[in-house]
């Protein structure tokens, strides 16, 4: 991962083009973006919300095990979740992107505070080199008091 690659991946103004670039890069590395999860709520898909002073488009939402409606945003997935996984050599975990709804419903809550909940998948996944990892998801509350998926990353499981 070089600054040039980051600049190239993030160059297009349109989020769909940025996503397509990342999908192309990932395909070259041998990873495929999963299809959108079937077990999510798409009623508000396409609506826009302000998150930390940026306009974001709802991809889907999920009611988590705490009864919170948690939104997953298109721009956030591309510009933060995907980009960071590529930057950190965690591309392999992107195939588990569609597990977000199930982990929010049935994952283990590692930490909960008024504006943040940390989830860890119940399932252990086999990662490259035979390592075992779980998927960690952190949801946060915006200044508008909506919950959103802040990150998804793999966590080494001994």
């Amino acid at each position, binding site marked *: 991962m070089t600054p040039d690659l980051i600049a190239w991946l993030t160059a297009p103004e349109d989020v769909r083009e940025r996503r397509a670039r990342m999908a192309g890069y990932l395909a070259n590395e041998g990873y495929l973006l999963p299809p959108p999860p079937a077990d999510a709520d798409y009623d508000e898909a396409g609506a826009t919300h302000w998150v930390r002073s940026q306009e974001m488009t709802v991809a889907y939402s999920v009611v988590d095990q705490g009864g919170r409606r948690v939104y997953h945003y298109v721009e956030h997935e591309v510009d933060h979740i995907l980009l960071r996984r590529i930057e950190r050599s965690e591309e392999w975990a992107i195939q588990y992107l569609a597990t977000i709804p199930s982990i929010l419903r049935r994952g283990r809550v590692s930490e909960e505070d008024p504006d943040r909940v940390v989830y860890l998948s119940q399932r252990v996944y086999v*990662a490259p080199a035979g390592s075992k990892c779980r998927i960690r998801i952190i949801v946060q509350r915006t200044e508008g008091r909506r919950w959103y998926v802040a*990150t998804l990353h793999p966590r080494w499981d001994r």
Partner: protein
Amino acid sequence: MGRPLYFRFDSFDNYFCLKFTDCPREPTAVWQDDLYEYRFQLIRGLRTGEIKGFSNDGGDLAQDYPRLMELLAQHPIPGLYDVPNLNLTDATLPQIITAIYERYVATRRAELQQVYPVVGAQAPVLQVADRPADKSQTEE
């Protein structure tokens, strides 16, 4: 000379990524983030088990900085590092994170207060225009 680190900062949620540039690329995963209360992570190579870098994905340096410094004092990470795009050489990890905080977070305090309003802070007084707006700027 310290070990060289690549650095990137994302101001959306005050995220930083520090990755070693002197070791081969390999698949990674987060390690020991619970030790640092999910405010800081070690990025670990899955093939070699080596530490590949550091990050705060899922945290927010603007909110976490004081507690993160306490946690790094309790669970120190040894070593001296060079971060060329921060102009730092032979710096410890707390020194690097302090530099990131001072350059990328503290300087945006006014902007951040819109995102994290200070409780009890007085709202700014609205200014009333002392002359009518230009006709060309009037809404139809």
